[in-house]
């Protein structure tokens, strides 16, 4: 029994408990308790992790535990974490915690809703705690599928279409991933040893370069679809717009990070030579994604679409940072994962809360909401400022680290893409301020809105948690980048830099 396994067991127990709940009150309290336990667990995990590192253990992964699963194929449930996965686990528990409170009043089919939501979270947790490619893939798929039901049943707007598009595109991504994983598996023991899916084992050998070149696009694009890689991001605006609040939060906040994490952990880490050979191509796509997403957001009128395009832009920045192959940019990319995760969750939570009151998400149908709901409005503004990279919030640090890392490449190509990527900070400011200006500030357009109420306690809790972490990371980034992530990037960097 490993401590890490608790991250999967607790949600499963929560799910089972919800099965026996009688009404929405019980359901949501069970969910809330379960996810609070999860939050505490991740706090404990961070402490344990720091203790292990403080004890001077410098293994790539710690708390490694090999649970035999399919011995004949050597597919195992190998648990293990490093600083990066620990921080992403923490991110996940924060977002799901906030998500449960954001869906406090989900009356319709509440049991099913919370079960699907928590199953989704289980998949994400599982993905982060394992280091066996097969197990990771199982959890990955597990996380993708409840989405269909969540959007299809509880969504709004063209929900069936969006849900279908999202699911199918992500499954198409899985199609690519499967090919890549199997390719890695069958080349994991070039000297005739036992084939393995274990990340650590695989990383001890070098996969032949031509094989890498073949597999890399599969894995990068496959995970990239979930990470909103241009031009395969198109599931994201519709999907997010149709999804219910908590699902948007979890999906944009955490699930999209699965994509970037997969790119980092599998594509880049295991196929470093190919990453170098093909990096420029994907770098161009990432750069386009950054600018394109931001420009696309300017013209949108639906709050969720705006945020979805902004997510495209921000997630592309993660890939951009990862493809820079250096400490600073990759640190920044990881930080951006966390930062964007919390930020976008905050946005979607707020949008859901505002929508719940005004019944519209069209910014031009609202106005002056800051006056009637100062807390939610202020939270939205703070989120917006964080999103446009204001110092003091997490996004700024992440962006800066990415840009500084990117700027250490002195060739023209990298300079140009970096300048283009950096230009997004202005565009981001344009659309964020436009939104804030139109629907929060100005005179109140709809007199029905005059009687709306401000946040209730669960909303405050949800939003407050997210705001707290955005600020904490923004003010003390050192803790994440140095203490938590620390040398966790070293193995990947070493492999990426070894021959160059």
């Amino acid at each position: 029994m490993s401590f890490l396994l608790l991250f999967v067991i607790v949600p499963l127990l929560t799910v089972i408990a919800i099965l026996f709940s009688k009404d929405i009150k019980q359901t949501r309290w069970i969910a809330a308790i379960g996810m609070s336990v999860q939050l505490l667990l991740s706090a404990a995990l961070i402490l344990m992790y720091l203790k292990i590192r403080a004890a001077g253990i410098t293994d790539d992964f710690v708390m490694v535990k090999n649970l035999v699963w399919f011995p004949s194929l050597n597919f195992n449930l190998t648990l293990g974490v490093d600083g990066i996965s620990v921080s992403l686990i923490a991110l996940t528990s924060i977002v799901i915690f906030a998500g449960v409170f954001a869906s406090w009043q989900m009356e319709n089919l509440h049991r099913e809703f919370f079960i699907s939501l928590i199953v989704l979270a289980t998949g994400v947790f599982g993905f982060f705690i394992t280091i066996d490619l097969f197990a990771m893939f199982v959890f990955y798929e597990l996380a993708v599928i409840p989405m269909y039901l969540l959007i299809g049943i509880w969504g709004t707007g063209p929900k069936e279409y969006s849900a279908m598009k999202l699911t199918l595109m992500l499954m198409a991504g899985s199609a690519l991933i499967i090919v890549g994983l199997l390719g890695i598996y069958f080349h994991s023991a070039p000297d005739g040893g036992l084939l393995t899916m274990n990340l650590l084992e695989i990383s001890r050998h070098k996969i032949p370069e031509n094989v890498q070149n073949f597999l890399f696009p599969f894995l990068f694009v496959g995970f990239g679809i979930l990470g909103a890689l241009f031009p395969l991001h198109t599931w994201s605006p519709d999907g997010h717009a149709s999804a219910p609040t908590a699902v948007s939060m979890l999906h944009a906040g955490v699930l999209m990070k699965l994509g970037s994490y997969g790119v980092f952990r599998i594509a880049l880490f295991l196929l470093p030579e190919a990453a170098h050979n093909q990096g420029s191509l994907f770098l161009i796509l990432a750069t386009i994604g950054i600018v394109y997403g931001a420009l696309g957001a300017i013209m949108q009128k639906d709050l969720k679409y705006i945020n979805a395009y902004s997510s495209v832009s921000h997630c592309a920045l993660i890939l951009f940072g990862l493809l820079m192959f250096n400490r600073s940019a990759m640190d920044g990319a990881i930080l951006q994962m966390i930062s964007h995760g919390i930020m976008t969750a905050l946005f979607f939570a707020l949008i859901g809360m505002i929508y719940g009151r005004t019944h519209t998400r069209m910014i031009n149908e609202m106005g002056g909401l800051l006056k009637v709901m100062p807390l939610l409005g202020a939270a939205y503004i703070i989120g917006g400022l964080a999103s446009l990279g204001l110092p003091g919030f997490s996004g700024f640090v992440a962006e800066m680290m990415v840009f500084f890392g990117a700027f250490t490449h002195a060739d023209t190509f990298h300079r140009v893409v970096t300048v283009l990527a950096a230009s997004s900070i202005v565009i981001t400011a344009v659309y964020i301020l436009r939104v804030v200006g139109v629907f929060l500030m100005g005179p109140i357009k709809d007199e029905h809105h005059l009687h709306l109420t401000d946040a209730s306690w669960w909303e405050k809790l949800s939003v407050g948690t997210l705001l707290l972490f955005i600020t904490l990371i923004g003010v003390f980034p050192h803790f994440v980048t140095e203490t938590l992530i620390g040398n966790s990037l070293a193995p990947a960097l070493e492999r990426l830099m070894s021959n160059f």
Partner: protein
Amino acid sequence: MNAFEYTFLIPFVPLLGFLIIIFNFNRFPKKLTAVLATGFIGFTFVVSIYTAWQYFFQMGPVNGVYPKFIGFDFEWLKLGDHLSVHMGTLIDQASVMMLIVVTTVSLMVHIYSIGYMHDDRGFNRFFAFLQLFSFSMLSLVMATNVFQIYIFWELVGVSSFLLIGFYYEKPSAVAASKKAFIVTRFADLFFLLGILLLSFHVGTFDFISLTNPENFESFNLSGYALFGLSIPALALILIFIGGAGKSAMFPLHIWLPDAMEGPSPVSALIHAATMVVAGVYLVARLFANYALMAPEALALVGYVGAFTSLFAAVIAVTQIDFKRVLAFSTISQIGYMMAGLGVSHYGGEEGLGYMASMFHLFTHAMFKALLFLGAGAVIHAVHTNSIREMGGLRKYMKTTHITFLIATLAIAGFPGLSGFFSKDEIITAAYQSNPLVYYALLVVAGLTAFYMFRLYFLVFWNTEPHYHLKPHDPGKAMLIPLIILALLSILTGYIPFGQFISSDGQPLHTHLHLDMAVISTLVSFTGIALAWMLYKKPSDMPQRLIASASTLYRWAYNKFYIDEVYLFVTRNIIFAYISRPIAWFDRHIVDGTMNAIGWVTVTTSHKIKGLQSGQLQKYAFAFVSAVLVISALLVYYLLNN
């Protein structure tokens, strides 16, 4: 440990104030907020004064050079293996001077605001934001490294955004705040790129090592460069663009006039005295680098400053909004400072421009804050911003009138007041190194005197419109700051500024340049006289003048249509030809492709349904032909392999 460790309190205390007030913004009574905020900023002011005293008088120059201290410092973030970002306080001549400026004006504005904002719903919010701004600005001026400056550069930007948009229900205020933020943000992009470029080549952010001429040898500045500029020139020009954005230099000045939508105290604090001079401060911080590594960049600073100064002065002559006149005057005066830096050299007597620029920054902060606070008092009294609806106020608002007159005289360069001394130094420096800049600045001096007195006469003299309520002097909370600032506007001119501030740290002995003083005094007297003739009493002279130069007047009145150009570029080009097509492209092409894949699949499915005809013999036919085809292919394959 060092003598200045306590300086961390200077930014920290306002931050604390911000947090305390913002978390209780709907709980605290106004009085408590006022006391807290003013108390915190007063404390900061005292600490700053103490720091200045300790730095300039207790310690003084070492071996004839003012040393630089790191008062307080910690590593905030590591960027890769080589660079790291620190947060801390840097104590040197420039930062200590700025501390005095910021805390003084901020304290005055705090006191003033207690009266000014008294009836406002957002009283607590206002003070919280003021505290936030003070925190950010103080951290900015004490930054130990260029990255820290950038961080707080953004934070002062956002405080400015929040305060301009303070009346968020007013669409014009919202638009102005947006504009201010986006324009400065746009400039900040270049600032960031400049930092990126500089740090990549120099390998440090730290001001102490960055600006030390002895280190310049060791910097690795080789590399390709754009537009034929060297690496440092390129980097420093990029950084200057950042500074130009914040300091409203042409063509990035457009946000500042609109920023007058904010409450008047805010205009005084942020958009006149402190934040807008951050650009000047930034160039001054890196002055050694500008002067020694990239003289071409410094020359650019000078020209841009001089041009902006002239340009804004011309516009100011035509404006009729009280605060906008002051705003353009601010732009013009900051241009003065920039020009002063631009014509300066590094070290010794040659560094006069630097000293002059800082001197002007200092004095300008005092009298411009006074002007704005005075304007606030007037607007508070007459409830309008348009100077056409004012007049004859000297009778009703005596104290305001006198303090405003002092400030006007100071800015016009009337001998004996602070503006006279600082302007004189700048003009001298310009005369010594660049005649073009010199003449421009001379013209500006005249124009400044003219438009300021035009404003003064129109508001306090001229015809008196019918006032619904009789205007009166404001209350004590607002008057005291006016009086204090008026005194400072007079007295600060007598500070031997070169003793304290200089480009290379060595005290500079300055004296009044009589020849220059005479010329500039004459010029400003001309301006004042003209204004007297035209505006002291109602007459049709102004109208006739306008008619005779109608085109020029129209252009100047419309600010040379720069705003319209921006609007055109953003709305008609970026939005219409980039953003909207991208939104369309995404929906129809990218998304359309995905939908098309689905459509093709489903359509194919429908098209091929005829294959399943239900006819047994057709099935059998498919079977037989498949067998035959496969066997033929297989045999063929076999025979060919």
